[in-house]
């Protein structure tokens, strides 16, 4: 057991830290909490990604061949942590960089790599995923959007839902049914679909937190050239699962830094805000709850370090990897509730309210965290995965 960084890793960290130190836009921290249209915000993040791309920092995990840095897993973790620590804006093309690019690298052909990868890195083309449907959520393989071959094109009909960035996307990684006459996992295919194709319609989906991060996408007789199949026809399940593996990978590294920053801010508030004539931080019950949050944020960090080490050593995630999603999502919900308790009546104040702490971001954080145990695989699905694939219990569904 050795938790020290190697000299190379330290050098990499210093380089990353120096670059972010000089280049993170100074107005971001203020701007982050300001009311701004989704479109204007996105343009800002797109420009930021272009800046990172020009300096060679977009897609650090991608191999050099495809325009990345070929960073080791530890370097990726360092990069993500430094980016969070510097309070850098996120990159605009989140799904392209984290999920779809790696999927094209793993399963795509040379022409596809040449056509799409560079534009993902530069944020010239924004990507979304078309996976879930109204009747295929956790049971993804039950999806019904169909694609019928017509000469050298597929004709796509159907509906997708919960598409993050659908409103901004130029392209979509779409999972469709190409053979309805075989068991459900065997008749699926992954297509790369130009969102400007005739017949594609995107509608915003307003969430309980008030934003419209997600969309619904409707496909009506949309023509997709056959050269846009990723992998092979009817082998889409393998490709889709490869994408989801990335979704559950290094994602937690930035979360851990953000959670710690939120915790530190909450402690500051607890030192200021009064409860029974004393700072809330002196109240024994509040102290217990804050210390429990600290404990869980630390344990999340240790679990991650273990998981990264395991992947680094063996190339595959260890059993501790599968608990991460449950851990961070449930922890955040508990943390947001503790924040609400500490702030009392002030906690409910929304953006724009006088007396709200931090421009109302806690009211938003509380509502947004409710989605954490649902997005990227519900807690129930995560527990099924642990039960069946880790503990070897019979499949329940």
């Amino acid at each position, binding site marked *: *057991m*050795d*938790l*020290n*960084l*190697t000299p190379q*890793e330290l050098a990499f960290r210093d380089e990353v830290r120096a670059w972010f130190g000089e280049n993170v836009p100074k107005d971001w921290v203020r701007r982050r909490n300001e009311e701004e249209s989704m479109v204007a915000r996105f343009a800002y993040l797109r420009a930021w990604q272009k800046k990172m791309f020009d300096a060679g920092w977009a897609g650090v995990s991608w191999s050099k061949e495809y325009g990345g840095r070929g960073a080791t897993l*530890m370097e990726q973790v360092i990069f993500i942590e430094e980016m969070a620590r510097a309070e850098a804006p996120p990159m605009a093309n989140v799904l392209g960089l984290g999920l779809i690019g790696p999927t094209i690298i793993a399963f795509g052909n040379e022409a596809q790599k040449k056509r799409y990868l560079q534009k993902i890195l530069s944020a010239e083309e924004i990507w979304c995923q078309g996976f879930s449907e109204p009747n295929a959520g956790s049971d993804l393989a039950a999806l019904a959007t169909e694609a019928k071959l017509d000469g050298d094109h597929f004709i796509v009909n159907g509906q997708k839902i919960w598409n993050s960035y659908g409103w901004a996307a130029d392209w979509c990684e779409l999972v469709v049914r190409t053979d309805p006459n075989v068991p459900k996992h065997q008749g699926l295919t992954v297509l790369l679909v130009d969102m400007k194709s005739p017949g594609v319609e995107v509608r915003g989906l307003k969430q309980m937190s008030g934003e419209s991060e997600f969309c619904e996408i409707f496909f009506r007789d949309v023509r997709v050239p056959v050269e846009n199949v990723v992998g092979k026809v009817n082998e889409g399940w393998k490709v889709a699962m490869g994408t989801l593996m990335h979704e559950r990978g290094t994602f937690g590294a930035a979360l851990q830094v953000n959670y710690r920053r939120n915790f*530190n801010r909450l*402690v*500051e508030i*607890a*030192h200021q805000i009064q409860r029974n004539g004393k700072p809330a*931080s002196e109240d*024994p019950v509040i*102290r*217990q709850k*804050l*210390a*429990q949050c*600290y*404990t*869980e944020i*630390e*344990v999340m960090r*240790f*679990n991650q*370090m*273990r998981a*990264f*080490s*395991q992947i*680094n*050593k063996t190339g595959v995630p260890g*059993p*501790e990897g599968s*608990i991460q999603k*449950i*851990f961070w999502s449930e922890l955040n919900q508990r943390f947001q509730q503790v924040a609400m308790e500490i702030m009392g009546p002030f906690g409910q104040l929304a953006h724009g309210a006088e007396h709200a702490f931090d421009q109302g971001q806690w009211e938003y954080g509380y509502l947004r965290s409710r989605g954490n145990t649902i997005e990227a695989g519900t807690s*129930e699905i*995560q*527990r*099924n995965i*642990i*039960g*069946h694939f*880790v*503990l*070897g*219990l*019979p*499949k*329940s569904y």
Partner: protein
Amino acid sequence: MQFGLSESQQILKNNARKFFAAECPMSEVRRIMETETAHDGKLWQSMAEQGFLGVVIPEEAGGMGLGMVELAALVEEMGRALVPGAFLATLAAGAAIHAAGSVRYLDEIAKGQVKATLALLESSASWDPDAVRMPAIHGEKLFVPDAGIADVMVVAARDGGELALYLVDGKTVEKTVMPAIDLTRRLYKISFNHANGERIAKGDAARKALDHALDVATVAACAELTGGMQRTMEIAVEYAKTRKQFGKPIGQYQAVQHQCADMFLLTESSRSATYFAAYALNEGVPEARSAVSVAKTYASDAGREVGNRGVQVQGGMGFTWENDVHLFYRRAKANEIAFGDATFHRERIARLVIDRMRASAAG
């Protein structure tokens, strides 16, 4: 960075698992726990021969001179096997002696010739060394683990106003067993009647030695909890795979399966926290003490929760005397309490982390 056991650490852990499977199966645990002192001299001697009793005692003092991570690996396996007896008590006493700058008894401890314990708690039942009130060396100590077989006791007492540590011959004091929840380890009330003892530390030195001994013992308790959770989960999962109701293994029902998944999450997270604390303590990093409290906070609650699910998953069978799970359930409660429960350690985190954040903001 490598968060995980090195090859030699893994070998130590594997060997410990094999050793305890052979030398201390559950039938032996049940036999030993029925004896007066819940201690077995033959098992103790075999453990000494393996080097287990001196794992963190320096080589020049007769031990193996290994670190906290190796200790955690060994103790995790002892927890998984529910090894009865005075290991934790002797470990805490040895760590206090060593941290006080003494090597008295360390060689004998490593060889298995001397068993020791740490007498700290009084009627205030506080794990905080500041709560020690007993004058040297006259009065009562409570909850002293395995004192029945301890040849020597490290006793925390007041010398004038100052905290001090004494070595007291275990045979010269009056011991009364305090029957308690963990059947595999006895607790005692000790009455000192103007006892003689050799003072090994006083004032700051005594406080530092005691703090260190408690940190070492706390990490060991976390490792034991983790091992106990691992075994409880294994037993429950095995049952869920084989027990059938309504024509299916009960582990196929999500209500049962998700309890097993929770046991896994709690066990693995306790493991991460324990090994981080062991590593931090070993390396002497600044946040070592808060890391110890993080581990004990998490593992204390997790140990109880895994125990609850381990019984629940097995239904009525889980509630029987014959089922081994209750023995782990009992040990988990005792270890939850030992060296401070989650509430105690959360308050310690509040002092180490939360209060300091105000101090640093003001400064």
